[in-house]
């Protein structure tokens, strides 16, 4: 085997919490930081979302302190607070030897650059984006896939989230990792009237995640909770499991935990349902995404 084929893609969860950070004793196991996932393949660093979890990723990258600096690629699912709020605290952005490219949807009324500049407007934060010393490029993604040091990144728009969001697929070494958060799959897979549009969206989703080695996906609510949160742009866990199994996903990380879901709540939910999950989805490993966890894919 060539060294490239032996190389592992490492996926680290730096923030797994949805909506708002939830620090404290009751969330220390699954984590209180908002979304940020690092994907590392050889010298290529991809980052998905810049929630508060990106701060710790920045500290680790700074600690490594590679003499040649680092080249980072940050892919934003969308620009709601919980997915960008950590950016002003991302230490490598203040280092001259960092190259940071930020990617996001082109389908915004305002350019991505102006949205991010707004985040660091003086009214909200004392330091403006011009204080970043890194070489920063902001790119609105185009239809073509992005090739980065042996990795390929494809993307698709997701419509059932207020303001929209983007899902990404990373392919490396014949492995596929999907980052698909902030989408209400219940709208697509359980519509009141199963229209052609819903069928097409469902087909797109299933093809995109098909046979993924790792799917990191929005599972914010239990089925019981979902009834009171229709239209909020997030998926129920049970439906996510069914959809992922239908697409023959190998490993599923249930992500974007609800702020009200404490460690005890998630552990009890797991203990109550794990036998049923395993029985219904024999070929798929399922787990709650957890901050501080690194997997090799």
């Amino acid at each position, binding site marked *: 085997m060539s060294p490239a084929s032996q190389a592992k893609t490492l996926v680290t969860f730096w923030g797994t919490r949805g909506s708002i950070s939830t620090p404290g004793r009751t969330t220390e196991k699954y984590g209180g930081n908002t979304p940020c996932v690092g994907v590392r393949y050889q010298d290529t660093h991809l980052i998905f979302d810049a929630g508060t979890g990106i701060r710790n990723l920045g500290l680790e990258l700074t600690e490594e302190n590679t003499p040649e600096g680092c080249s980072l690629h940050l892919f934003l699912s969308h620009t709601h607070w919980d997915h960008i709020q950590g950016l002003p605290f991302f230490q490598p952005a203040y280092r001259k030897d960092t190259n940071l490219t930020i990617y996001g949807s082109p389908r915004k009324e305002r350019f991505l650059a102006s949205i991010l500049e707004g985040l660091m407007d003086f009214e909200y934060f004392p330091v403006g984006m011009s204080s970043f010393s890194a070489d920063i490029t902001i790119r609105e993604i185009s239809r073509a896939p992005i090739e980065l040091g042996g990795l390929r990144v494809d993307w698709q728009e997701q419509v059932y989230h207020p303001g929209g969001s983007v899902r990404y697929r990373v392919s490396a070494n014949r492995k596929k990792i999907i980052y698909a958060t902030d989408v209400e799959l219940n709208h697509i897979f359980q519509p009141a009237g199963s229209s052609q549009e819903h069928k097409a969206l469902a087909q797109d989703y299933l093809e995109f995640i098909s046979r993924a080695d790792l799917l990191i996906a929005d599972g914010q609510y239990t089925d019981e909770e979902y009834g009171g949160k229709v239209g909020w742009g997030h998926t129920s866990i049970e439906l996510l499991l069914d959809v992922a199994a239908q697409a023959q996903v190998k490993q599923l990380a249930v992500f974007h935990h609800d702020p009200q879901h404490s460690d005890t709540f998630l552990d009890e939910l797991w203990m109550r349902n794990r036998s049923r999950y395993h029985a219904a989805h024999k070929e798929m490993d399922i*787990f709650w995404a957890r*901050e*501080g*966890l690194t997997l*090799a894919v």
Partner: protein
Amino acid sequence: MTKETEKTVWRDKADKESARDNEFGYSTTAELSRKAFRGELPIKQRACLEIIGAGGKSKVIELGQGELTIGRSPGCAIQLRRSIVSRSHAQVTFRNEEYHLEDLGSTNGTYVNGIKVERCILRNNDQIDIGGVKMLFSEQKSLQKL
């Protein structure tokens, strides 16, 4: 005027009760200066790996604040004599006040709560599986003996 009367009545009652309590000597509390509350006892962060053996027998290994290697090799702090355990299989490190478990490129992997991990920050009651050997991680903070 009415209110003032009620206030007076209440105060009289309170004064009487206070006087009665004083007769028994337990209503007054000696005052301590605020300085007395500033002294803090040193806290010790303790963490253990409980290795669950055959027949429910277990062995508890206290984790220090350095590195600890788990593997088949006799040089490992926790030696697991099983052919499916790699010579140097995994490592536990104390960093930034947390215990980190890292797989050292083992053949059969390191599992935490059933998930195959490359690295993982350990939390109380995490169940680790290395080559079929199960371990329970626990940590607590306690007062250091003076």
